[in-house]
């Protein structure tokens, strides 16, 4: 085929666009940026590059990162919020400074707002664009959760990239490396491994694996358990929460100290009892051995799976603060005959890779980053099994289609449950979402042809479409939960608000109000039929009027007006909501009676 060279957009160095690289870590976060050919790390108000991922809501105030380290309420802060993204991050399990119940997404949003402000103070002007890194082994749901939190903070996410890929990108560019490299990335809460091929400006991930719930935090916990058992003869679980947190904090400090000295004495206070204890590498290594063994096993499995001989691998690049633990490189050497590259700062290299990539996204470049999906994606089929549509380690973006059919005569609807994971039975995999394709023309079982298309984009976000090939009935789904706003809608809201916003705080409030309004409007849309059924003509008119009012205020950036109109619409639907509850209840009762018959 004929290829024509794309011309790089001409940009004079002075108006190069700015894009933050954000490494949102489990224990620490790092931001960096490349401005006019110069790369720099962002420092917070205490002059620190490493910003602890801590949030403290207390007495009408919010505090973040290093502001909390010496605070008397340190132990009341929210630790490791990122870990919740692999669980139910919508659950409102925290309380903000005004005692409102909030979810992990909202806590993360506040933290992103803080990071954004810190960056703007460093750079002396507004920044909206960013590339955010995520653990390579994070599933789709966790990725879209992180993206949502960032959108809500008014950040325009240009790309989500995998942490080990970002590290390899920075490492390869900086050290001008070529060949096959194994990135071993042990962070505060996650463990990732990626095998990459680096050649002239190409950074190609061959395969990736990991454990989204294994990291430095687990080492601290395990070592804390060992310490209290050994020196105080107490079971860790018998301690109260504050004592446990204190002990874990100490165990973390000891762990860090052990990276430069082999043994030392420390005072340890548990339940009011003080003891002077010997801390040494040997005990530490023994207490955490099973975790390290697990990382070795995951590494070996990946190498085995890809059929790359170990002698073809140039070496292991160690990334992530927890990779500083001394016995890790020893174990790697024992198990794999390979070189170890620890000549990068393991805490900072991920953010740097994100910033460099962000710069290239906005200002053009010849480099290419090619990544893969860490986990298989599929659909639940008969008998609760998962049918894979995109298998793990497929290069992204990826579009795959598969045809499904009905299993009952005359069936007119089909339910699709979308799953991610490697297990055969669907209940062991993560459920990403479900949707129903209705209006299938009734036919004998096995005759209709329903085409399901999975489209996984370069951020690792999935879009699913199901089409009945005969009737053309189509149901689009960007995997989302319930009435939540689609990521594309959110992206658009952020973009239009950025273009129009006068100042930063105002801009953020506008985004929040608009997102809230959109979610509400979507909810109302989904119960439209019930409204027509249950409400009086006058009520319906009033609701419609308020819907239009809210919709038209969405065209503006007046967040007071948007909020007022949300409230108006809410008031006018109150009596409907009550009727709907009664109706749903009577339907449930109705069904039960039928069953008795």
């Amino acid at each position, binding site marked *: *085929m*004929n*290829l*024509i060279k*794309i*011309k790089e957009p001409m940009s004079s160095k002075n108006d190069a666009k700015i894009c933050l690289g954000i490494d949102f870590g489990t224990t620490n976060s790092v931001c960096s940026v490349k401005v006019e050919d110069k790369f720099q790390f962002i420092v917070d108000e205490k002059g620190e590059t490493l910003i602890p991922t801590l949030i403290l809501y207390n007495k009408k105030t919010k505090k973040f990162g290093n502001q909390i380290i010496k605070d008397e309420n340190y132990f009341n802060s929210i630790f490791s919020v990122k870990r919740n993204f692999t669980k139910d991050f919508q659950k409102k399990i925290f309380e903000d400074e005004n005692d409102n119940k909030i979810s992990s997404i909202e806590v993360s949003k506040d933290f992103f707002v803080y990071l954004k402000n810190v960056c703007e103070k460093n750079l002396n002007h507004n920044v909206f664009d960013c590339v955010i890194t995520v653990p390579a082994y994070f599933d789709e749901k966790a990725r879209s959760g992180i993206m949502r939190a960032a959108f809500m903070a008014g950040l325009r996410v*240009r*790309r989500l990239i995998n942490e080990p890929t970002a590290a390899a990108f920075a490492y390869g560019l900086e050290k001008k490396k070529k060949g096959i490299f194994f990135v071993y990335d042990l962070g505060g809460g996650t463990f990732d491994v990626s095998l990459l091929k680096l050649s002239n*400006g*190409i950074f*190609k991930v061959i395969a990736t694996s990991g454990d989204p719930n294994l990291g430095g935090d687990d080492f601290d916990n395990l070592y804390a358990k060992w310490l209290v058992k050994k020196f105080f003869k107490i079971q860790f679980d018998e301690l109260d929460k504050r004592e446990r947190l204190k002990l874990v904090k100490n165990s973390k400090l000891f762990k860090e100290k052990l990276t430069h000295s082999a043994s030392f004495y420390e005072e340890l206070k548990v339940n009011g009892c003080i003891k002077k204890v010997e801390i040494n590498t040997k005990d530490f290594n023994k207490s955490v051995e099973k975790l390290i063994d697990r990382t070795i096993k995951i590494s070996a499995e990946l190498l*085995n799976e890809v059929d790359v001989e170990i002698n073809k691998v140039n070496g292991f690049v160690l990334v992530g603060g927890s990779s500083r633990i001394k016995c890790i490189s020893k174990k790697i050497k024992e198990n794999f005959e390979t070189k170890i590259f620890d000549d990068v700062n393991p805490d900072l290299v991920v953010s740097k890779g994100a910033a460099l*990539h962000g710069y*290239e*996204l*906005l200002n053009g470049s*010849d480099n*290419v*980053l*090619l990544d893969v999906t860490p986990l298989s994606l599929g659909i639940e089929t008969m008998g609760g099994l998962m049918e894979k549509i995109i298998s793990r380690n*497929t*290069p*992204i*973006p*990826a*579009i*795959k289609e598969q045809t499904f059919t009905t299993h009952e005569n005359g069936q007119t609807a089909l339910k699709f449950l979308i799953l991610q994971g490697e297990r055969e039975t669907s209940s062991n995999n993560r459920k990403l979402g479900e949707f129903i394709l209705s209006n299938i023309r009734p036919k004998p079982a096995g005759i209709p042809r329903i085409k399901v298309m999975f*489209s996984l*984009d*370069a951020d690792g976000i999935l879009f699913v479409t199901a089409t009945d090939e005969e009737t053309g009935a189509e149901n689009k789904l960007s995997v989302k939960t319930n009435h939540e706003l689609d990521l594309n809608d959110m992206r658009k809201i952020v973009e239009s608000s950025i273009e129009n916003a006068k100042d930063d705080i105002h801009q953020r409030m506008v985004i929040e109000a608009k997102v809230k309004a959109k979610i509400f409007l979507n909810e109302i849309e989904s119960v439209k039929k019930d409204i027509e059924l249950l409400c009086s003509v006058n009520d319906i008119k009033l609701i419609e009027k308020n819907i239009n009012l809210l919709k038209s205020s969405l065209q503006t950036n007046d967040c007071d007006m948007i909020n007022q109109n949300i409230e108006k619409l809410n008031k006018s639907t109150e009596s409907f909501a009550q009727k709907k509850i009664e109706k749903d209840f009577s339907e449930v009762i109705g069904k039960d009676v039928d069953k008795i018959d």
Partner: protein
Amino acid sequence: MSVSPVCWNCQSAIPPNTFLCQKCNKIQPPKKIDEFKLFGIPEKFDLDLEELEIAYLKLQRLFHPDKYSQLSDQEIKYSTLLSSMINEAYQKLSSSISRASILLKLNGFNSHSEDQSFNDPEVLEEIMDIQNNFLEAENPEQKKNSIQKLNRKISETMNSLSTSFKKKEYEVANRLNIKLSYLKKIRIDFKKQL
């Protein structure tokens, strides 16, 4: 009669097998194209994988969504579609089994899918032998030997497959390709048990 497509932006004609407008340089929606033509590499079984890789990277450098992140939604969509198509074609050509299937299809031979009942007693016996040999292995050393034997069998089959393509004996090629896919499946199973 087929009408040659025109650029969505400037309406100039788009020559076959190209995805960029030669006049305005805009990315075009992907069209169906066979994998060999897409990469502009010779249509043969004994593919130079290095050559494939170079062609693949050259295309991704032009069409990966990272290169379009600042452009219109439409262009982002086209680049996602094209980049996905390039990824899939690359994966298919990289694997000898799917590469053989593509070649069979291009030569008008309706290749049988692997799932179809396969009853070549000679081949089935060969496969049984390999499996028994592995099951009877008493220690890891013997198991490794058994896998090495399997590896030799795989490369022999690959060679015969290549010869049959050169001789244009597609019926034979199809049988050998099914055999190859069996052997490769067994190898995955064996490796899991190591």
